[in-house]
């Protein structure tokens, strides 16, 4: 398209295009969204690769994420330090995986990480309980919650260790019609 932009070097843009599923225009648009969150922190010129991290509170206030019950986990999974503060790379990564162009197995991999609250590479019963409570905003009684969690483990746990491993999760989620 030939419009001169001074935010990235051409190599940087190419790199971003290869690493994520976005086109040039979309990457630039995402950069502007990132910058709008904190104009004083983010420099308009990324050619010298500044090391800028936005805190989780700003990311969580984006309209796309504000109402999502899992926004904290999403930010934690995609941030480098696991604390929710994201650089531009993390930001682009996150939206790339969540976009519709990402393949299902990639999404399944990241979904597993999001639902694994204690980061032990297994989804155990307490992780499930936290998930259900976040989904229903604590409207269900504790007996109902534990019934649901037991049913989930019963349904999806193939290797019978009482918790869901990545293979169990993938085996279950790839059959789901609604997984997007």
């Amino acid at each position, binding site marked *: 398209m030939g419009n001169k932009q001074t935010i990235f070097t051409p190599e940087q843009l190419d*790199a971003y295009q290869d*690493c994520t599923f976005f086109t040039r225009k979309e990457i630039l648009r995402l950069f502007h969204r990132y910058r709008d969150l904190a104009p004083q922190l983010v420099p308009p010129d990324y050619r010298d690769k500044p090391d800028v991290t936005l805190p989780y509170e700003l990311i969580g206030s984006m309209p796309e994420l504000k109402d999502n019950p899992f926004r904290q986990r999403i930010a934690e999974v995609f941030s480098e330090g696991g604390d929710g503060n994201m650089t531009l790379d993390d930001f682009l990564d996150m939206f790339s995986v969540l976009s519709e162009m990402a393949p299902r197995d990639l999404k399944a991999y990241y979904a597993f990480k999001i639902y694994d609250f204690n980061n032990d590479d297994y989804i155990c019963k307490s992780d499930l309980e936290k998930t*259900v409570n976040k*989904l229903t905003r604590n409207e*269900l009684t504790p007996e109902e919650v534990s019934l*649901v969690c037991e049913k989930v483990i019963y349904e999806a746990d193939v290797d019978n260790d009482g918790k869901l491993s990545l293979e169990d999760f993938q085996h*279950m*989620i790839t059959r*789901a019609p609604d997984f997007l």
Partner: protein
Amino acid sequence: SCYREAQLFVEKFEGALGKGKGKKFYAYKVMMTKKWMKFQRDFENFKTACIPWEMKIKEIESHFGSSVASYFIFLRWMYGINMILFGLTFGLVMVPEALMGKPYGSLPRKTVPRAEEATAMNFATLWDFSGFAQYSVLFYGYYNNQRTIGWLKFRMPLSYFLVGVGTIGYSFMIVIRTMARNANEEGGGDDTSFNFSWKMFTSWDYLIGNPETADNKFASITTSFKEAIVEEQESRKEENIHLTRFLRVLANFLALCTLAGSGYLIFFVVRRSQKFALEGLENYGWWERNEVNMVMSLLGMFCPTLFDVISSLENYHPRIALRWQLGRIFALFLGNLYTFIIALMDEINLKARYLLPFIIFNMQLGKDEDFQQLEEEKIVKYNMTIWEASLYNGTIPENSTAPPIQVDPADVPRGPCWETMVGQEFVRLTVSDTMTTYITILIGDFLRAVFVRFFNYCWCWDLEYGFPSYSEFDISGNVLGLIFNQGMIWMGSFYAPCLPAINVFRLHTSMYLQCWAVMCCNVPQERVFKASRSNNFYMAMLLFILFLSTLPAVYTIVSIPPSFDCGPFSGKTRMFEVISETLEHDFPSWFGKVFGYASNPGLILPFILLMVLSIYYLNATSKSYKEANLELKKKLQSVRNR
């Protein structure tokens, strides 16, 4: 780092991976695919946006569950049917007569009689659908029996007849088609192997950016979990079979007693009212005069609650309990109606306000009616000849062909027009039914909610948890009301073409009023359950009512002579003669001969036999397909679990 490696790898194998030479065409292909996907998605969005009231129903579904929402989906479906019926009656019957028929005042049947003229424009008269409303395209009596009208040579009587038959035929077709489609879906993929897991991990929609939508989504997820939990609890219940069976038999016995009791009560009350009428109604107060109405309404209000209490003995899955409830209330209404008719058998009271028994009553006394009507008509015709003779003042002998004296149509004496009377009764019944429903909603739900909310502070016990608390949405009552209302429309639309129009208006306002009332004044049920995926139970009841409602209309078309003085069939001995008349005049003669051969009973009976046999055959094959389907599913399950 990892990225660097990948880049080197790609550069090495550039050609094989489609970059470089084939780049332009590849990029073009990708762009076209993207654009096509986007277009498809936009089109799907557009199609979904076109479905009326979808947002309202989704909102109700997320807060109250799929069973309450299924009522509103049913209501919307009925609205669609009524729109089509309205289109047929309006476009093919009312509009041609209004545009091309003789205008108001040109014929006696189209004019308000002199005696009623003074009150014809009053609101009270119009609300009662007499006066100007009666003598208009809204009712049967207005239509002229000219074979063709206007410069288009539009065949009015034929159109009236065909639209009447066509509305019934279309309704049958669409109900059966919907039942067949629902039956197909039910047998299809019922994969519940990962039910709970999917609910947990895939129900949140990551594209939601609006807080209100998020609220709805949370509510719907919670409701969906609760529904699934109920299903799970039901399947886990430990049943003491003997106790349960005994309790169920007991409950059915109690229900039968209730039905018998209400039937007997009605019989008793009707006999009593006949006794009152014989002794003169002036001697009795308001209760005795309206005893029958009041008793029937009270029974209709309290017996369903009684059935509800009885059903708690039975301990069924809530969905099955709903079906039993619907079936019992249905039996209650039908039983009441029939006892009413039987009690009236010996009373020839044509002015009874319950037109439903009037028509069925008509059927049973068919022969006597014929005779009575002919007698009445003869009397009127005789009166008219005397009246005409009086006009001539005896100056001109009867056999001469003098020009008729111009008489204002309002002064001509009229014959009885039972079709318009019947139509009017149906319209009045529909209107009063609508008013009753709306007032019940406003008082029963809204005022009650206001009372509970604001008087809770200064009341002795907790109004919100104890009595009366907020009301729940009564699914069975509303569904039955809708079905019976539609039955009345089907029955009456032959005599009053305005009925579908009134019903469309009523359903439209009902939708908005009930949606508002549900969200504002009702609370969800204790045990939210998932409606059955098909609505076949509602459809079956609708089909039954459709069949019952078309019987009177068909009977009158075939057996009762139309009024001689009003309507598009006046002058004929039977209404269906318009068909044979059309065949004679408008079709070539060989067509009439063929039709005559085809309608020979000797041909029709074997044809009916053939149809019955083919139904049996298709039924047998479909059963065997279903079994084969189940076998295959089981095999699939066992393969997957391995």
